[in-house]
């Protein structure tokens, strides 16, 4: 596989799932570089979805975002969209896209959380806690207690909290923006071959999110 390519260079066909990492101007959007390839690997390992081996990086300021059904956005620094980014995110969500935002700071008192939630509310509407019995937690694997905890939560980094819920923005009952304060960016940013060292693959929830985004 080649390293991630930018959206406009994407060689993939529209019938394949392509992991798209959102590139935004205000922050360190590339803070978890291995998440893309690791989750792509997981989708192939656990599902029969057609998946591209080449994740892409797509600029939120470009209308290329509308070519992908799923976008992943993470970082530590402030998230403040430009007008073009805001318009594209709004169009992406309006047209049925799924935006997964993860706070790499794992800190609800940090600037990523404060600025990202403000931007998402302004762009896509009110954000609220997602109940732990939501369909998202049983799309493929079952997570009866809601979102799985991460190592950063259990070790007390960031805000030193184990977050009970994810948050979401819904349209017609469907999740269109999923927001996590749990730092899955750190949890999933490792070489996919290292899954063999784990008793339980911790990317399984990520597979659920992707399957939900593509099939619901």
């Amino acid at each position: 596989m080649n390293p991630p390519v930018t959206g406009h260079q994407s060689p993939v066909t529209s019938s394949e799932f392509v992991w798209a990492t959102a590139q935004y101007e205000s922050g360190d959007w590339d803070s978890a570089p291995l998440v893309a390839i690791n989750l792509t690997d997981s989708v192939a390992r656990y599902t029969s979805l057609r998946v591209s081996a080449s994740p892409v990086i797509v600029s939120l300021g470009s209308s290329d975002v509308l070519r992908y059904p799923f976008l992943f956005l993470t970082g530590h620094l402030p998230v403040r969209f430009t007008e073009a980014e805001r318009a594209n995110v709004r169009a992406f969500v309006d047209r049925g896209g799924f935006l997964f935002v993860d706070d790499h700071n794992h800190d609800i008192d940090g600037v990523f959380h404060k600025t990202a939630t403000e931007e998402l509310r302004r762009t896509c509407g009110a954000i609220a806690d997602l109940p732990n019995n939501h369909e998202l937690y049983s799309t493929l694997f079952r997570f009866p207690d809601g979102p799985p905890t991460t190592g950063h939560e259990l070790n007390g980094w960031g805000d030193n909290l184990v977050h009970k819920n994810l948050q979401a923005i819904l349209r017609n009952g469907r999740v269109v923006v999923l927001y996590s304060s749990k730092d899955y960016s750190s949890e999933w940013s490792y070489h996919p071959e290292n899954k063999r060292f784990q008793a339980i693959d911790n990317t399984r929830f990520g597979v659920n999110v992707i399957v939900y985004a593509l099939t619901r």
Partner: protein
Amino acid sequence: MTVAQRIEATRAFLAVTTLIGAAVVFVAVRGLQPNFGGVLPAAAALASVWVCRGVFVRRDVVLWLESRLPELRYSLVALHEDPKSRFRPALEARALATDVRRVVALAGLRLVGVPAAILAVTQFAVLPFLARSDAADGSRTVGHDARRGAASGRDAFSAIIKPPSYTRIAIDTIDDPTAIAALVGSEIRFIGAHTDRVTMPRRPTVLRFGAGASERLVALEPRADSSPHVVLSLPARDTVLPNASGVLTLSASARDDYGIASGWFEMIVSSGDGESFKFRDAIIARTAANGARDFQLSASIRLDTLGLRPGDIVHLRAVARDANPASDAESGNSETRTLRVYRRGESDSVEIEALPPPEVGKSELSQRMLIIMTEKLVTQSRSLARNAFVTESRSIGTEQTRLRKRVGQIIFTRLTGEEADEDAVEAMADTLSPADALLKAASDATGAGAANPLEPAEGDSPVIAVNRPLLEAFNAMWEAERRLGISEPRQALPYMRSALAAIQRARAAERVYLRGRPPKIVLDIVRIRLSGKKDGINPGERSPRASAVAALLERHARFSSALQLLANDSASAAIDSLTLLRVEALTDQPAFASALSTAVNDLRSGRDATLSLGAARRALVGLPQRGSNSRWRGQ
């Protein structure tokens, strides 16, 4: 009190009561005639002040007192006209001997009471009477344009719309309303055949007045107050600074539809890299705009006062807020500019392969996870069988033991700089209290005596000081492990939490992350396809997704039904149906709603609505398209 002071006090009292009376007159007239704004009420208030203007003139007040109190025998007038009169002592004695308080109080009461009575009469008699007469003769009698417009008949009514006060928009009146478009929060008062008072909601809605054949629908179409539009003109673009010095000029402009309350600059300084960032934020140059529609904001920052270091990033934006008092009113923000301080060597990168995670057999559950498991066990204690409870408690205790040993190894290694001998630590722990054992080990290793295990001692080496919280954690884990071993998880929890708190204190050590260019990873999709463990795959039922087409078809069917009503000469029912449809379409199909508005107005005014209804249908379903299987191939 001298005579002069008494006259001045009387004059002041009468003047104040006159002004209060004028204010009451203003309120009374405004209630009676709301659609004139403040002009007529202000004129009435000024007239009442003019009538009583004598209270502001000292000579008039003196003459008024003389006329009301004959017993003064012109003593006040004489003193007023000739203060140096040789009869002054006698005149003052007479003036002071006369009690003016009752007369003045009655006058004050009259000055306030009469306007208050007028207010009461207008509120409780005139307005209800006018409303009733409206209903009776079909003409609106309240308001300047009472006899104007199309309102007629027994069902005539009007809506008086008062926008939120911060907008400073005049009150408006709509006769015979079918739809009212106004700002969210506007007060709407209906008078005439139907009386009601509502506040414009946030979502479109329909009000129903009356019942049966005489039912009237009024659509409420909220208009949101848009947030200010803010443009940050300086700094004009993102910048990398070679060093953090000099003066940075900030400039922004803001514009709002009704007026801006205040504006300011927001600054966030982020320091750090990798996974470790710290942030500072500040508000700069908060300035009141006093309701101006266009507003300029400027400030300057001396960069050397920010304490910026290489690699720090300054995020700047301008913010303006309008005068909308609603708690959820959005402020307007400019785009964010970032200024980064150049870090020497930032272009370098080192490629570092990530280490694999530890082997499963050697990994320990974290203290926080153990606490969660124990809390879960405690909550399940009543429902679990005794054997299962004991087994689970011991299992958690075993994990606690493993974690304690790991902490012991860390302490030992940090004290001695050597790999800990697990057996040696365990052997010592068997004979001494855990902390003592470790301190003894530390003592043996470092040659420093282990005097008082957990009490801070002067002269502690930094290594001992740093490890003290870990020693506390070790000790607490030991006790928790003992409690879990005898199936007392509830009693173990306080010790486990103490251990966690101690670990958190100990993690003051700097976190170091090595970061470089990520390795190039090649995925062989065919090889890994479906190779994952299938354990836990148990997909739930898939809920059907709402069909957007179905909603459109349902709306189209309702539109057709309304047209059918028109064809059946049920124009009134058709108008109501179209009004309801319009309110529902306002949020998701504004073009269709707008076209429907024109059609409804045409129908209500008796004009030919063919074109407007056609436009509404096109807005709903789009232009007619030639189907692929159509026989028609016209050019």
